[in-house]
C-alpha cells in the first residue's frame, strides 16, 4: 500500500463478492450440480410439462380404471373387445362379428328396430375409447349395419388410479402443490424467524431472555399435533396449511439468526452505525440482515424437505388438500390403500417425493459447504 504505486488500466482486478465466490464453489461441485439438475427436472415436470401433456389431473377415463403402467398405448385387444361390447350392450345392439385392427374396429351389429345414426352416435359418445362410427354397408331393413370406428389411442405411462385418472398427470399436479407449500411455508418461517431472532439478538438483555425462553417452551410442545388440530378445526384450505406449517418451523431459524445477530453486534461497523445514530430498523436492514443471510438461506433450504414431508404427512392422514387437487402425500395415501392390487400408485409418487426431499437436502449441504469453506 505504498503511495508510489499507480494502477494501470489493464491491471485492475475486478473484485468478486462473497456470494459470487460461493456460487462458483457451488458450481464446481459435480454432486451439487447433479442434484440441482434433478430438482430442475422435477420442477419442470410439475410446472411446465402439464402445458403439453395430453391428460389433465381431473379427467376421468372410465374405460381405463386401475390400468398398470405401460409404455405401449392403450387399449389392447381384449380391452377393446370388452369396451366395444359393453357400449353395444348399453345401446341394445347385438354384435354379430367384431374385428380389432391396429387403430380401428370393424363390426357387424344388429338391432330389433331399424338403426338410426344419431342414436348410434350417442351410444358411442358414452365412452371415450372410440371415435364416431362410419357406416360401411346397411341392410335393406336397416336393422343390420356394418360399421367401423377409429380407436382413440392413449398412453398411461404410470398407469391410472381407481377413478381412471392418469397417474403421471396427478403426480404433476401433486408436485405443484407439494413444492409450492414447501416454498411458501419456508418463506413464512424465514419471515417470522428472522424478525424474531434479529430483534431478540439486537435488543438483548431481559427482552432477549424472555423471547428465547418462549422459544424454548415452544420447543417442548409437540407442534405437529397443533397443526393437526388447527387444520381439522379450521377447515382444510391451502393457505392455512402454509401458515400453520411455517408457524411451526420458525423456531430453529429464530435461534440461528439471534446467535448471528448477537455476534454481529460486536462488529465495528455496527458500532459505527449506532454511534452515527441510525435507528434500529436501519441498522438491522442495512448492516445485520445482509450478513446473516448466508446461514438463513442454508437453513431454509435444509428446512424445506421437512415442510414438504410435513404436508405429505397431513395429507396422508386425510387432512391435506382435497379432491380433485392432489399433493404427493394424497397420492401416497391413495396408493397405500390400493397397494395390494395396484402397487404403482404407491411407488411412483413415493419415488418423486423421496427424490425431491433427498436432492434438496444434498443441495442444502453443498450450499453450506460453498458459503462456509472452513467447514
Amino acid at each position, binding site marked *: 500500500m505504498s503511495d508510489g504505486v499507480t494502477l494501470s488500466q489493464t491491471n485492475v482486478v475486478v473484485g468478486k463478492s462473497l456470494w459470487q465466490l460461493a456460487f462458483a464453489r457451488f458450481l464446481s461441485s459435480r454432486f451439487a450440480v447433479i442434484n440441482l439438475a434433478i430438482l430442475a427436472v422435477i420442477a419442470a415436470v410439475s410446472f411446465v410439462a402439464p402445458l403439453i401433456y395430453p391428460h389433465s389431473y381431473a379427467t376421468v377415463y372410465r374405460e381405463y380404471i386401475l390400468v398398470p403402467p405401460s409404455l405401449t398405448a392403450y387399449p389392447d385387444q381384449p380391452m377393446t373387445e370388452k369396451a366395444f361390447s359393453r357400449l353395444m350392450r348399453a345401446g341394445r345392439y347385438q354384435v354379430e362379428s367384431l374385428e380389432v385392427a391396429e387403430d380401428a374396429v370393424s363390426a357387424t351389429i344388429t338391432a330389433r328396430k331399424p338403426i338410426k345414426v344419431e342414436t348410434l352416435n350417442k351410444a358411442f359418445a358414452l365412452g371415450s375409447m372410440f371415435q364416431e362410427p362410419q357406416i360401411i354397408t346397411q341392410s335393406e331393413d336397416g336393422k343390420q349395419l356394418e360399421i367401423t370406428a377409429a380407436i382413440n389411442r392413449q398412453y398411461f405411462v404410470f398407469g391410472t388410479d381407481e377413478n381412471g385418472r392418469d397417474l403421471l398427470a396427478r403426480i404433476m399436479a401433486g408436485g405443484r402443490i407439494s413444492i409450492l407449500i414447501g416454498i411458501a411455508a419456508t418463506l413464512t418461517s424465514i419471515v417470522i424467524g428472522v424478525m424474531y431472532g434479529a430483534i431478540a439478538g439486537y435488543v438483548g438483555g431481559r427482552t432477549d431472555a424472555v423471547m428465547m425462553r418462549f422459544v424454548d*417452551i415452544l420447543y*417442548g410442545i409437540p407442534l405437529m399435533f397443533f397443526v393437526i388440530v388447527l387444520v381439522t378445526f379450521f377447515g382444510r384450505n391451502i393457505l392455512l396449511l402454509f401458515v400453520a406449517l411455517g408457524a411451526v418451523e420458525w423456531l430453529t431459524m429464530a435461534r440461528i439468526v439471534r446467535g448471528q445477530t448477537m455476534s454481529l453486534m460486536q462488529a465495528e461497523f455496527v458500532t459505527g452505525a449506532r454511534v452515527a445514530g441510525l435507528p434500529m430498523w436501519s441498522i438491522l436492514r442495512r448492516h445485520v440482515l445482509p450478513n446473516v443471510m448466508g446461514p438463513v438461506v442454508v437453513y431454509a433450504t435444509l428446512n424445506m424437505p421437512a415442510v414438504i414431508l410435513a404436508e405429505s404427512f397431513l395429507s396422508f392422514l386425510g387432512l391435506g388438500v382435497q379432491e380433485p387437487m392432489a399433493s404427493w402425500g394424497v397420492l401416497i395415501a391413495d396408493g397405500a390403500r390400493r397397494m395390494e392390487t395396484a402397487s404403482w400408485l404407491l411407488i411412483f409418487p413415493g419415488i418423486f417425493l423421496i427424490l425431491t426431499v433427498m436432492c434438496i437436502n444434498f443441495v442444502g449441504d453443498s450450499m453450506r459447504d460453498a458459503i462456509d469453506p472452513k467447514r
Partner: protein
Amino acid sequence: MNILILLIRRAFSAFLTLALTITVSFFLMRLAPGGPFDQERRLPAEVMANLKQKFHLDKSLIEQFWIYVKGLTRGDFGPSMIYSDFSVSDLVFQGLWASMQIGLAAIGVSLVLGVLLGALAAVRMGGWLDQTLMAFSLAGIAIPTFILAPLMSLVLAVHLKWFAVAGWGDGGFYYLTLPVVALAIPQIGIIARLMRGSMADVLTQMHIRTAHAKGQHPLLVVSNHAFRQSLFPVISYLGPAMAAILTGSVVIERVFAIEGLGRHFVQGALDRDYPLVMGTVIVYTTFIMLFNFVADLLYVLIDPRIRETGNE
C-alpha cells in the same frame, strides 16, 4: 445440591410448557367453528340444550376453562363428547397402553442399533462398512414412515406372509414387529449418524491416543474411553426422538390399524371431541417432556462436570 437446582429449574419450565399447551389448545379448539354435536340431522333444541348443559358448553369460555382445569388437578380429563359411555381418561389410557408398548420398543431398538452401528461406522471411518452403513442410514432417514410402512407391509406381510398385515392380535412378535421396526428405522438412521459424528470427534482426542499408546486392546479403548463420552449428542436427542416417534405412531397406527393414542387423537379431532383431543395432546406433551427430563438426568449422571456445577 446443584443437581437439585437444575432439576427444579427444569421442572418449573416443564410446568410452564404444560400450562401453555393446555391453555392454547383449549382456546384454539373452542374458537374454531363447528362443534361435536353438529350432525346431518339437526338435534331438537331441547336435546341440544341438555347436551350443552351436560358438557358445560352453555357457560362462558372462561368458566369452561376453569371447570376443565379444576378437573385436571384431580386427574380427570372429563367425559368424551362422542363416545358417551367412556371418560376421556379411559380412552386415553387404553390407547396409551398400546402406543406406549410400540413406542418404547421402537425407541429401545433404535437406541441399541443406532448406537452400535454408529460406533461401528466411526471406528471404520471411511471404509466400505462405514460407507454402506451411512448410505443405509440416509435412506432410512429420507424415506418417510408413511411410505416405508405400507411398503414393508406389502412385501413382508402380504407377499411373504412373515408377519400380520394389521391389527394388534395377541400383541406378540407376529403382530408388532412391523409397526415397531417401521417406527424405529428413521430413528436408527439419525442416531447412528449422531453417534458416528461424535465418536469420530472423541477418537481424535489425546486420552484416546494415550490409551492406544499404553497398548490397550483397540476394542477396550473404544468401550472404556470413547464410548461414554460419545453418547452425549444421542442423549440430548432423546426428547426429539420421542416426539418423532409419537408423531410417527399416528401414521403407524393408521397403516396397521392399531387402536392407539394416535387413532384417538385424529378421530377426536375429526369428530371435534374437545376433551378427547385435549386429553391426547396433554398426554403427548407430558411424554415428550418426560423424555427431555430423563435426558437431562442422564446427562447429569454421565457427565461429572455438570454434576459439580449445575451448569449445562
